[in-house]
């Protein structure tokens, strides 16, 4: 009963639900409308890069965007500092 008087604080389970939903839905909404081959394309890019550099699947990001008449395919590969220094040596 007393809890009700103090209203909804930031530690309430409802606010945890709200924050978690906001994060996951904003991610899922960007994935929406993306072509179905994109995950496979991402996997192929990953496999090719892996032949040369040790990376994980979360280091490759493939995204398709549409701006009016033009679509862009964006491929981002990030890798840790030590990998870069190994490469340049």
């Amino acid at each position: 009963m007393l809890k009700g008087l103090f209203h909804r604080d930031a530690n309430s389970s409802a606010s945890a639900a709200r924050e978690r939903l906001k994060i996951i839905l904003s991610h899922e909404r960007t994935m929406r409308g993306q072509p179905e081959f994109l995950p496979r394309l991402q996997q192929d890019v990953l496999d090719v890069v892996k032949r040369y550099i040790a990376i994980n699947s979360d280091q490759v990001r493939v995204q398709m965007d549409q701006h009016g008449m033009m679509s862009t395919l964006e491929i981002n590969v990030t890798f840790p500092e030590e990998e870069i220094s190994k490469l340049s040596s």
Partner: protein
Amino acid sequence: MAKIIVITSGKGGVGKTTSCASLGSGLALRGYKTVMIDFDVGLRNLDLVLGCERRVVYDLVNVIQGEASLHQALIRDKRADDLFMLPASQTRDKDALTLEGVDQVIQALSMDFDYILCDSPAGIERGAQLAMYFADEAVLVTNPEVSSVRDTDRIIGLLQAKTQAAKNGGKVKEHLLLTRYNSQRVAEGEMLSLEDVQDILSVPLMGLIPESESVLKASNKGIPVIHEEGTDASIAYKDAVARLLGEEVPLKFVEPEKTGFLNRMFGGRK
């Protein structure tokens, strides 16, 4: 031409069929000729909630496959003269529903009815997509709970991509129906609030149905809860119907009831 409304949610068990039965009954009580189609092939349930399960002879698939006429398959509700329902098939495989078949049935019903309510199965598969395909409007039945809100968001994505309206460059009009709302738990920070859900989904609110004992009692008896005069759920569904018809109705059941000390101690049950 009838207005076609899909009752959908993605997640199961949030109250699609319960809501469909009450919204359909409400529209009929307001004088609109309404037909409800149960799209849940294999898991027919709208007949039970309406209390007409023993009168089912033919179903949607029989009609699509030409084994029965629409006239033979439609069941008239015993409480509202303007309400009919077309049951889902119980036994056949889900592929029995075809887009062309559903199109024909809906077009034929469009001639005679003001409203066609499509009670969608749970999920995002074929059955759910067929139920929403021809819709002009969608009622998004959602519980104030993480998985339900997420699934509703998923369904919104499908409504905006996989419907006839979307393919013709239009938009299915979306309505949020928040069900099983417990304003006491919301006040205690244990449940997502109406404001939270609206903020996340950005869909105009059509109704807020409080969590209520009367819903289960009514479905036990096979009576759409909107007929249980005076119960909170009945009041809330009647308001939702009014909003669906474009009327402005103040929102009820958002704040917890202010009950006296004794009532709180001994439970003021309705």
